[in-house]
């Protein structure tokens, strides 16, 4: 150790250290990097499609029809693509638990392998948007400032300026986006689930989608001002000011005016 310490001022030391660091990073990446990108490309194997079809017939065909062409109660799934399946099933929205204004998020009913099999089957029915790669949805590679400008124009009217969500008509609502995984955010923009319109890559490019994900990634963690009261705007803030703030002021006035015992 002493020998090492003596050489730490050597002018070759930074180079050696840099090389070591690079080697370590590369090695760690090779070991720990998610292999899903590879898995996605091999996803369309015939076995997966077959397994997916079995799952589909058992769990989805009741509403979407045995050929996935849709029925009176559910839309056709031909051409919706793997991305739509990964979003709807991966967030637990499908299979739908009960009829209602919109399908709600709940714990996913299938594991990742089953979801990818289902996605492979639906993708085999007709060309549609594919599941994005991890690189496409990495918030650290996006520019949150550009993302904010795009979010403000395209998303904020329904999802609230910081993505806290908001009400639509007849019991429908735009959900809060803070807990949604980057991949599901990307897939939602790409496929336009339920009430949400479609934002295809020609409208908001793949890089711009990543910018938006980077912006959402920055929201909902901490508010510089302290309590954000849910970030839902004048209702919660007004209630706080009128009930708690004015209540304290009235209490102080009563105390000042009361006689001391």
């Amino acid at each position, binding site marked *: 150790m002493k020998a090492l310490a003596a050489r730490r001022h050597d002018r070759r030391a930074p180079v050696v250290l840099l090389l070591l660091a690079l080697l370590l990073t590369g090695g760690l990446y090779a070991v720990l990097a998610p292999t899903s990108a590879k898995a996605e490309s091999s996803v369309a194997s015939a076995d997966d499609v077959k397994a997916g079809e079995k799952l589909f017939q058992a769990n989805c065909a009741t509403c979407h029809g045995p050929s996935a062409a849709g029925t009176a109660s559910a839309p056709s799934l031909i051409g919706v693509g793997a991305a739509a399946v990964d979003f709807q099933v991966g967030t637990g929205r499908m299979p739908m638990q009960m009829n209602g204004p919109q399908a709600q998020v709940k714990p996913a009913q299938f594991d990742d392998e089953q979801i990818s099999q289902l996605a492979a089957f639906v993708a085999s029915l007709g060309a549609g948007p594919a599941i994005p790669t991890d690189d496409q949805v990495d918030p650290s590679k996006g520019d949150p400032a550009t993302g904010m400008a795009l979010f403000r124009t395209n998303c904020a009217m329904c999802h609230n300026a910081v993505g806290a969500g908001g009400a*639509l008509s007849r019991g429908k609502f735009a959900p809060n986006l803070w807990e949604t995984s980057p991949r599901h955010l990307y897939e939602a923009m790409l496929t336009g689930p*339920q009430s949400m*319109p479609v934002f295809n890559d020609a409208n908001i490019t793949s890089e711009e989608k990543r910018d938006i994900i980077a912006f959402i990634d920055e929201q909902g963690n901490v508010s510089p001002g302290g309590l954000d009261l849910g970030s839902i705007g004048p209702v919660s803030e007004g209630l706080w000011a009128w009930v708690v703030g004015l209540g304290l002021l009235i209490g102080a006035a009563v105390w000042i005016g009361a006689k001391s015992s």
Partner: protein
Amino acid sequence: MSAHDNSHDLEVRDSNVVDRFEDPGHPDHQPRKGDTDPKANKKAERQVLFLFAVSVLGTIGFVVAYFALPPGDTAESMRTSNLALGGALAFALLGIGTGAIHWAKALMNDHEKSEERHLQRSDDETRAAAVEVLAEGTADSGISRRGALKGAVVSALALFPITIALPLIGNIGEDWNVGKLKHTIWKKGVRLSRDPNGRPIKASDVTIGSVFHVIPDNLEEHHETGDYMDQKAKAVVLLVRLDPRDLKADQSPAGETWSYDGIVAYSKICTHVGCPVALYEQQTHHLLCPCHQSTFDIADGARVVFGPAKRPLPQLPITVDDEGYLVAQSDFTQPVGPSFWERETK
């Protein structure tokens, strides 16, 4: 108290009516605990001492927080800094306020005192003298005799308020040219481009169910003329592609030619009070205004299906140019946004 008692009261009051109620005087003085018990007095003193000490500690805490917790660059550090500074400031000020009031209420004497008000009315002699001075002045000015002077002074006094009223009224609204409300910068051949980055839109980019937030391609020129925001505020458009089968047949007479293969473009400015209408529900083709929940049916000529808006959103007639880009056929054929006096209602 029974009804009988009440009538008895009235009779008594009638028999000896008083002009004024007697001053009931102060209620009996109730000594406080601290007035009789020296221990309680000492306790109240300690409480006041404590409150002022809280204030001192708050101020010290503020100074410490100012140096120890700078706002920094992250949201976390800003929140910590704001919380510490605000919390310390609250203790510093509340300590002084509550301490001073508690001191006054618990330690200073609380004997009720009355101070007689002196009469407001001057005595008769002074009043007569004042009237005499006024009469003398009026006679001396000869205002009843000198008619021209009387007219002049009245005119001067009556006209002067114009100097106050004119700027107040003249500055309302700044611009009285209502013609500006009737036109936007859309015209024949202007490309539809994306808000905010200004990339033009090809018809093939717009898949069914897509929504594009659109600005006119010529908006860029208005960066130099300085009216960029004014022009953008009038010209913003929402572009939607529906399955052509979903578009209702019973559109406005010109509606058929105003869309392109299921692509329709409508003004984004609500006809109620001008909020940006942009909450589009893909499945119902309904477009909601976030301000007052006016709902427009995009599949049916932006007909109002709910809410306070009176008119459908104006439609922008669109088509495609040789390169496949979406372009406007003309400006809107009616003024966008809310009503104004000179607007012809259709």
